[in-house]
């Protein structure tokens, strides 16, 4: 597997999309229970914008000749890879604009946050389609979409919650964690549905090498198991935090859950790129 740059790119971008949508979803609640929303949202928005930029920079390392990188948008409309790059650029620009305006104007703009998130949702569609339309055995299946959207839903909310945690207290953080837990269940469910459908599918061989997804996956079955154990452990941690009625929230547990989800999604993507290697 040589696709580390793409792994970083396709984990960070969906995670940023999920995180920004989660911030939009929870900002009303936060505004009600805490006074200074700007102070609370500023750092998370900024970090999400930075993470998405890191994702994009990561993708440059995939290119053999990055000096020609601008050419990669020439195929917009024809090539799904170009569509993905344009949509990613739009999402990052909007994420930076949202963070920038929050800092400069000292005002939260929920509509801009929502638009950024929705452009991100379109971006994830382009990202998944760029793989789904190739000849790579195992990529041309609905599961590819479920894998990418699953990252947005499972990793995004816990990422946003971890960024909000230091500036939230008591009930407010409890609420945020509860919502993060609920969305993570959706994220993991989406991936499980995709995975279950994938198991009952024999992809047509469309390459002369004749390699099948099933054959490539054989050495990685243990790794896939470990990935699910880590992901479920992260979910259990979130469940524990959500059900915790004590006032003192264990912040270390929130960050531990984040690390678990990052690892699980990273391994999931690693296995995904094994198919194309």
């Amino acid at each position, binding site marked *: 597997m040589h696709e580390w740059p793409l792994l970083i790119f396709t984990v960070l971008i969906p995670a940023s999309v999920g995180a920004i949508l989660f911030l939009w979803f929870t900002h009303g609640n936060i505004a009600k229970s805490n006074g200074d929303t700007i102070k609370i949202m500023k750092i998370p928005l900024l970090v999400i914008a930075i993470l998405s930029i890191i994702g994009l920079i990561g993708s440059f390392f*995939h*290119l*053999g*000749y*990055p000096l*020609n*990188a601008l*050419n*990669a*948008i*020439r*195929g917009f409309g*024809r*090539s*799904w*890879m*170009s569509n993905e*790059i344009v949509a990613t650029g739009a999402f990052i620009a909007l994420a930076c604009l949202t963070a920038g305006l929050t800092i400069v104007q000292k005002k939260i703009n929920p509509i801009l946050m929502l638009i950024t998130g929705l452009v991100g949702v379109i971006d994830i569609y382009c990202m998944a389609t*760029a*793989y789904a*339309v*190739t*000849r*790579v055995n195992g*990529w041309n299946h609905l599961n590819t979409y479920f894998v990418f959207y699953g990252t947005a839903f499972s990793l995004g909310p816990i990422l946003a919650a971890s960024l909000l945690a230091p500036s939230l207290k008591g009930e407010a953080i409890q609420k945020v964690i509860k919502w993060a837990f609920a969305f993570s269940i959706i994220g993991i469910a989406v991936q499980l549905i995709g995975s279950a459908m994938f198991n009952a599918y024999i992809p*047509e*061989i*469309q*390459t*002369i*090498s*004749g390699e099948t997804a099933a054959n490539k996956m054989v050495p990685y079955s243990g790794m896939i198991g470990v990935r699910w154990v880590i992901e479920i452990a992260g979910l259990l941690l979130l469940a524990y935090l959500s059900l915790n009625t004590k006032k003192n929230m264990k912040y270390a547990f929130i960050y531990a859950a984040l690390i678990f989800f990052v690892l699980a999604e990273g391994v999931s993507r690693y296995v995904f790129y094994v198919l*194309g290697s």
Partner: protein
Amino acid sequence: MVQLGFFINNEYCNGCKACVIACKDKNDLEVGVNFRRVYENSEGDYVERDEAFIQNIQTFFTSISCNHCENPACVKGCPTGAMHKREEDGVVLVDQNKCVGCKYCIWNCPYGGPQYNEKIGKMTKCDFCIDLIDKGENPACVGACPMRALDYGPIDELRKKYGNVRDIKGLPSSSITEPNIVINANKYAK
């Protein structure tokens, strides 16, 4: 517009790979970079019958380069427009000034046509030896084949001469990209 294509006689091909070597030599290709490749398709085994071993082995070889397809998936997928199909003869080429080395064409081509060059960080591929054709010579692979198993020319003429087969055992369905090849299928390849 004339569309150039290859004829592959895999009834004659004995898998000597002279075509691969001639192509590597002509294009000065590194180890692992092969504009033309020969795929071996073998089946069968030695089976014990009473006091003897009998074999039912079937083997045939298919020499494949870029098939300069009618609907090249590499061209459609290329984000930069570097991968393009030439108007005058339908040859699929890479514009090195545009290529970004993203390798997306590798994931799109059913035949393993695009070959990545690590040294320059860009994609390379069979260019049908258009320079040799301009000089009135054969493409290197066609000229090198000791079995006369390869031929080239306008695809319409090749089809008139050799027929219309391009779907054989071991090759991806021609419906994906409409490759400009004609094959005389080996008896085991049908």
